[in-house]
């Protein structure tokens, strides 16, 4: 290894196979985790915005039937319903279907509506939490992978040191420097993933709670409506 050329890239290129593999894995992990970070960020912020909008329209005193129709039309136009709308649609659709029966049993109607909403809710919960496990594992594992690469590289460079007669710093320094790049890359991959995971997990949890609250409120409204007639 020439000593004049100690740029990071040349260090990477001259690294041993295993360290290079470790670096490649970490680079890939970083790239994918950034895709996830951006995608999740957009999805969650969109969900939050839609929830706020929907709640505004819902509590503005709009007729529930027309709201239902609007959402159904939207779906027909290939605009996918967002989380909260899905829950509303599932609950209200089920309720309407059961109310139109000959002799609706109030308990059965409410229970069935609740079940429909619960199913939609759990589906939403699932989609809120997609990719978060991936981010979590990148966050927790990539420092270890990087550390493994570093330890391996340093091990090799010390073994090389044992073979030379005159041990100078210059014989080990490039190897150690090269090995430390693996740790740096591990941290580079892990830090954004940790931050994103913490933030998005909290956000998803909050959205989930809001959905649940909404489902409960909606269920009580339907119950009232059913008994008022």
């Amino acid at each position, binding site marked *: 290894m020439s000593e004049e050329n100690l*740029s*990071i*890239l040349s260090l990477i290129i001259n690294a041993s196979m295993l360290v290079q593999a470790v670096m490649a894995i970490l680079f890939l992990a970083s790239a994918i985790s*950034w*895709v996830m970070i*951006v995608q999740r960020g957009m999805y969650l912020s*969109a969900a939050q915005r839609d929830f706020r909008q929907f709640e505004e329209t819902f509590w503005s005193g709009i007729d529930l039937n027309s709201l239902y129709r609007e959402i159904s039309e939207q779906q027909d136009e290939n605009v996918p319903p967002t989380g909260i709308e899905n829950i509303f649609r599932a609950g209200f659709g089920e309720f309407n279907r059961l109310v139109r029966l000959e002799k609706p049993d109030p308990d059965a109607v409410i229970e069935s509506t609740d079940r429909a909403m619960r199913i939609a809710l759990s589906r939403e919960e699932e989609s809120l939490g997609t990719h978060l496990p991936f981010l979590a594992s990148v966050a927790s594992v990539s420092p270890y992978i990087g550390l493994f690469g570093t330890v391996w590289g340093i091990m090799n460079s010390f073994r090389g040191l044992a073979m030379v007669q005159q041990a100078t710093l210059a014989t080990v320094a490039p190897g150690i420097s090269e090995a430390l790049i693996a740790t740096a890359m591990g941290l*580079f991959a892990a830090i954004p993933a940790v931050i994103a995971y913490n933030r998005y997990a909290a956000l998803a949890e909050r959205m989930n709670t809001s959905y649940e609250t909404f489902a409960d409120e909606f269920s009580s409204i339907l119950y009232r409506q059913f008994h008022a007639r």
Partner: protein
Amino acid sequence: MSRILSYVIGAMVSAVLHVGVIVALWANWQPSSETVYLQPKYVVAELVQLAPRAPAVSKEKKTSATSDQLARKKKRQLEERKRKSRADELRKNAKKAALAARKKREDEERLALEKRRLEESRRVEREQQQAEWEDMLTQKEAQMDAQEDQRAANSYRQIIQQRLSENWSRPPSARRNMEAQVRIQLVPTGRVVGVNIIKSSGDAAFDRSVEQAVRKAHQFIELQAMDSRLFELKFRSVDVAFSPEDLRL
């Protein structure tokens, strides 16, 4: 639909970020090995050449009666002017040549002067370097001498210590934390010529025993082998601390 779009945007952001990092590493992380050579600043002296002022031609205006006369006069004037201008030119050329010659001479002188000055400064620098080098050498020698001295002194100290402890009988009143310091005066033969206690232990018997020990040792014959410079430096008077466990110099 929008889901795929968000993935695409994410992939793009990720790609841009990582490519940016790679480019940054590629571009910036070379250790800069550029050396800057300082160039001496010369002040170039130049002769300022004054442009020769054009001779003022006085215009004579004379009205004469006849045109013939006027023409002749004009002709004469023209000739005269021509002559004048030729003479002027000649004069100017001579002047220029003289100026050029002077300039050249001055240039040469200047160059020689500069060369001499440069040589002078180089010589001074070399002398300075040599002087520094010699200084360093002498310093190093002095240091080594001092180390040598220290080593010799330590060995003599050990001899004195041993002899004193052989001759010292500790009194029964000696306690563990007692300490007495004595100053021993020596002569180059190694003989003890004086003992005084400079720090008492507080116990009279202890102090007496210490003094006794020094007097009993009487002469350190080994000190005769020591060179006189070291003796004068360190062994003309020696301080010894006695304490029940050991004695230190």
